[in-house]
């Protein structure tokens, strides 16, 4: 711990501590059990992952009157006094980290959820965290992490437990800040920097535990960890691939060396079912990504939806959405929990739309597969579904020396950008990106390559990309909005109780659909969104927030 932090521990920030006295905590963990309402206190807003807001001010009529309340370019400056929109009087930028300060990461798009609690926004980017006033976008505090390095691909957001705010850094620290002041409480290392892990996930608070995932491109094993949010103590660690000769799933790998270098990273937040105490999350691709010759078998538990018991970190059930993936199609996307009706029977369900172009509905208690449907019109890598619902990969669509024409492209039919669900329409809303590339095997070595090496992917083109409303009971597309020129879209989705669906169109517009029929009701051309639209109340008024690169836009109805 460096000197400035030591000082803060010895003299525990007295004025700020006093300011906090008598105030309720920022987010008591029990509040996270509530359905999405006036605040947005966690990655998905609530534990279901539905991204379905109960707020009713913005509806099919009033949506056209949305007004831009403010826009703010995030302040990445690591020196001088930040705060209060440069007007002075704010807190100085807090600086922490284990780096030397030599690597200056003064930028990076907002790719995560923004948290909103009681009129304060909590925003993250790689090596940065901020608090803003939700009323006008003014900066209240700014924390900068001096990095050791690592892959600075994004930050998916923060978590709040009581008065502490948590985020992960690209060089693999879990950082705990005082949510009111931005001052650091502590930081702990969560994965090995030497082994080339990098961390992007938004931590998820469940009671007195923090779910923490990380990422890696160098054939290292994936894992989910639970930490004590008070102390940073590691409580359990769940590997997503077999690490020993007697680990479950080892029969789907040639040997322990292959399995324990098999990837399956946990880089996108999952969801939580309080009734079972299961945390449900998806895992990334097996490694090496494109050269599967050295890892024959299904490669469990990569590209898999997993339920773990939060109390113990033990796996309750799993469902593999891409056995033996050879296209870097992670299945790490956030699944969605809801109650529905299947064949006349009420069921507790989970649905997910995967990067490989499949839509799945399962029993979220038992993991029983109910629907397994390729919803992508163009995906051409599957031979159909096995009896257990998992798709059967076509070995002919792996990278080959003379080239294999494959759809979708590397980015997938969907990706980490969250899909959404509306319990009112019973529809699951997801992007359907369609493109083709020719995959050439450039390293035919039978041992396989490493990481994402060994191939050349030549982009052919995109066509027919669309936004889909999917019936969770059948996987059928109820309505489908094709995007002009078939452009592929990387945007998350929000639904509301007033029958709206917000997302991006890949042509720099944020758009609102009628959730029931797909009619376009509103748009604003602010640039392609880099995260997902969110909504909450500030002083009783419903706001709509989205990030475009390094800039936030907040819309409101007056």
């Amino acid at each position, binding site marked *: 711990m460096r000197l400035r932090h030591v000082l803060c521990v010895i003299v525990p920030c007295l004025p700020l501590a006093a300011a906090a006295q008598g105030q309720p905590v920022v987010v008591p963990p029990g509040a996270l059990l509530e359905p999405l309402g006036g605040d947005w206190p966690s990655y998905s807003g609530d534990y279901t992952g539905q991204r379905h807001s109960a707020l009713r001010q913005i509806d099919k009529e009033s949506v056209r009157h949305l007004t831009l309340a403010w826009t703010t370019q995030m302040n990445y400056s690591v020196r001088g006094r930040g705060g209060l929109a440069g007007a002075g009087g704010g807190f100085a930028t807090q600086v922490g980290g284990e780096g030397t300060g030599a690597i200056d990461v003064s930028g990076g798009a907002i790719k995560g959820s923004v948290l909103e609690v009681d009129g304060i926004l909590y925003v993250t980017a790689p090596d940065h965290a901020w608090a803003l006033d939700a009323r006008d976008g003014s900066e209240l505090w700014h924390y900068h992490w001096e990095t050791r390095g690592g892959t600075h691909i994004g930050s998916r957001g923060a978590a709040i437990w009581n008065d502490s705010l948590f985020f992960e850094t690209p060089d693999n620290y879990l950082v705990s800040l005082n949510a009111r002041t931005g001052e650091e409480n502590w930081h702990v290392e969560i994965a090995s920097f030497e082994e080339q892990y990098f961390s992007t996930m938004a931590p998820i608070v469940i009671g007195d535990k923090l779910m923490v995932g990380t990422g890696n491109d160098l054939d290292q094993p994936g894992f989910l960890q639970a930490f004590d949010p008070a102390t940073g103590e590691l409580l359990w660690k769940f590997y997503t691939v077999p690490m020993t000769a007697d680990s479950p799933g080892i029969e789907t790998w040639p040997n322990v060396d292959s399995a324990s270098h098999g990837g399956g990273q946990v880089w996108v937040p999952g969801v939580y079912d309080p009734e079972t105490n299961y945390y449900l999350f998806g895992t990334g691709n097996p490694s090496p990504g494109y050269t599967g010759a050295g890892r024959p078998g299904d490669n469990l538990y990569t590209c898999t939806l997993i339920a773990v018991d939060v109390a113990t970190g033990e796996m309750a059930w799993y469902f593999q959405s891409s056995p033996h993936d050879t296209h870097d199609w992670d299945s790490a996307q956030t699944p969605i929990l809801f109650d529905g009706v299947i064949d006349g029977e009420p069921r507790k369900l989970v649905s997910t739309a995967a990067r490989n172009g499949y839509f799945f509905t399962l029993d979220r208690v038992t993991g029983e597969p109910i629907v397994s449907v390729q919803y992508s019109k163009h995906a051409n890598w599957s031979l159909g579904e096995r009896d257990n619902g998992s798709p059967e990969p076509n070995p002919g669509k792996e990278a080959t020396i003379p080239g294999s*024409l494959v759809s979708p492209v590397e980015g997938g039919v969907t990706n980490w950008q969250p899909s959404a669900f509306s319990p009112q329409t019973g529809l699951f809303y997801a992007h359907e990106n369609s493109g083709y590339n020719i995959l050439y095997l450039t390293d035919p070595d039978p041992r396989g390559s490493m990481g994402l090496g060994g191939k050349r992917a030549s982009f052919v083109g995109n066509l027919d990309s669309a936004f889909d409303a999917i019936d969770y009971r059948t996987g059928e597309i109820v309505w489908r909005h094709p995007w*002009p020129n078939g452009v592929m879209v990387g945007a998350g989705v929000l639904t509301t109780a007033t029958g709206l669906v917000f997302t991006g169109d890949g042509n720099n517009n944020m758009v609102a659909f009628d959730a029931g029929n797909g009619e376009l009701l509103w748009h604003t051309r602010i640039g392609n969104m880099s995260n997902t639209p969110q909504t909450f109340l500030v002083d009783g008024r419903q706001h709509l927030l989205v990030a475009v690169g390094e800039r936030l836009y907040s819309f409101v109805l007056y």
Partner: protein
Amino acid sequence: MPCATAKTTPPEQTMHKTIIWAACAASAFVGIAVAQDTTGGPRIEIANPNATFPAQQRALASADVIERGNGLYQVNCMACHGRDLRGGDQGGPNLLRSDVVLNDVEGEVIGELVRNGLNRMPANTSLDADAIRSIAGYIHSVLATAQGQGAPPRGVEYDLDIVVGDARRGERYFNRECAMCHSATGDLAGIATLIDDPVNLQNSWVAGRRQGRGGGPAPVQIVTVTQGDGSSVSGELVRYDDFFVSLRAPDGGYRGYSRVGTGVTIAIEDPLAGHKALWPEIEDDEMHDVTAYLETLK
């Protein structure tokens, strides 16, 4: 770019290439060091995320040490771990993703394992500390040249022939599916000379736009915009979405139209429509056949 030179090294000159690897690694490190000296200067992009991990950040051993380590590696380690360190015929694991190597700085972790052995690896007490430091220095010099997203260092450059199809079958496919727009003696005469890399040739004909060297954007689409009063104008499509369309009219003028509540309708002629119809239908064998046929059009 660092290590581009390795690519041009003939594969048989393995020793030579190894030395180039080391030199590349050294220059890559210098690049990082320079960047770190500019603290307080202008914004520094992390353009190569690969260079931000310790295996690529750390200082290399001297060229002499690396050279000695290379020799010792070949005698003591290569049989099991491979010439390229990615695992060998005797079953030794890939060292470039090994926890032992990644957590080692100058032989302290590697040395302990060498002296004590592990699993099927026998203990070796004949290598002294200096020898182990040299071997570690060599291994780290190779690891330092690893590429982005976990890809290994550029090693053997395979001469991969992608032209495996049957040209006569390809000609029949061409005559059936392509000849309504293209001609082997017309627009495609000499195409294999113009695009002399078969990979680029295949990418180009499938996509419908030239790729690789000399490549360009997709051919322009023609849009016809009809307004509420029935008047219409056609031109080169500039941009459109669900709310807007713009074009370059034949007179060179720019026109933009709102599509929201204006009664504007659009019709687009896509010169790539034929290619796009092909993508979901064509089998890979057919694609290879057509490429083989086009390769005959020198």
